[in-house]
């Protein structure tokens, strides 16, 4: 019930509605809950409403996290090699 699926906005209307695409599925969504929707935006869609734009992940932070995990797992990972 709280699942939200990323869609790409492909067309915008004046009344707050938009057409958005997820894979091969195109559906009408509402953009009332986000600021400045634009064609090409990736948005999370929940119950027919875009609830947030999705930004590219902070790769630097993620890389640091994975480095830390490698460090944590270090000795044990050697077992798999």
């Amino acid at each position, binding site marked *: 019930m709280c699942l939200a699926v990323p869609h790409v906005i492909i067309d915008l209307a004046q009344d707050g509605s938009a057409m958005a695409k997820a894979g091969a599925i195109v559906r009408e969504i509402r953009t009332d809950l*986000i600021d400045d929707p634009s064609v090409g935006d990736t948005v999370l869609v929940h119950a027919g409403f875009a609830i947030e734009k999705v*930004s590219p992940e902070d790769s630097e932070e993620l890389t640091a996290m994975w480095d830390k995990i490698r460090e944590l797992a270090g000795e044990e*990972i050697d077992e798999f090699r």
Partner: protein
Amino acid sequence: MSSDRAKLLSSALRRLADRPTTIMEVCGTHTVSIFRQGLRSLFPENLKLISGPGCPVCVTSQGEIDGAIELATRKNVVMATYGDMMRVPGSNGTLGELRGSGSDVRVVLSAMETLRMAEEMPHKEIVFLAVGFETTAPATAALLIEARKKNLDNLSALCLHKRVPPALRALSETDGNRVDGFLLPGHVAVILGHEPFKFIPERYGIACTIAGFEADEIMLALVDLLEQIGKNRPSLTSRYDKAVRPEGNVKAVDLMNRVFNTSTSTWRGIGPIDESGMSIKEEYSLWDGSRKFDVAVRNMPEPKGCRCGEILSGTITPKECPLFGTGCTPITPVGPCMVSSEGTCSAWYRYGRKGDLKWES
């Protein structure tokens, strides 16, 4: 997730879980994700995940469901609902059964569909069954604002929305609470941001991490939680920054605040929780189905033998319910945790036989 990453994460978790640790995944979508992606097979023995009250269908009280079902039987009413609610048993049947016996109950994918229904059926009373947490409530708020703007007097919402942070407060204050960390619901946090959850580590010393829904995102969040717990430094962190801004979705929160007051709400299995409900404000009272139709919500007992309440508060697991898998299955559900696709019992039933769970007591 690649097998290399899975091994890395599994090893890291094993290192970090140096003592028995209980983490509650609050969100029903997390529950399903963890099962479906087989993540439990990567958890060390010391790490126990329990499911929380994060499925809106499951926590809707018996009395609320009975009230909705009673309203749907009234003459001239068209009840519009998200599909999840169709099979939830009230004291006398379900909305789905009502539809089979002639009541006009319709499934919608978006609250806004009811706007068109109201315009196309001016002689009918369209009632939107508004369930869900803060993820879903802004859509209801947008609907009512639009209905008021268009002066549609044959549309209303039966507002059963609930707020997540007060429920976490109630769980944290429960005697014998054994939760060391909360895996926080990513999409509720998309709306609320960080602030409404900060009281949990500050006041109760329970670690908190906002998590996304991919396998990597969930596992990274668990690493975060175990680190906090291991260092005895509970705090609020986020592993879902691609979607969650610290301030949340200000526009969505503003819409909710324009339309809803905070009220006490009864959660199945937990009982009444202060400030955990949303009631429609006076200026939108014409679109408040509860007032318009004087819907009575009574305190109703759980179905006989059903232990959904204890499951929702993480007190027991589904296998400890005598009805699980025998009297209560997805085909013949007794309690809501088996009905909803995100219910804990439904997830255990559907995915628990795949080798990543111990079924024996």
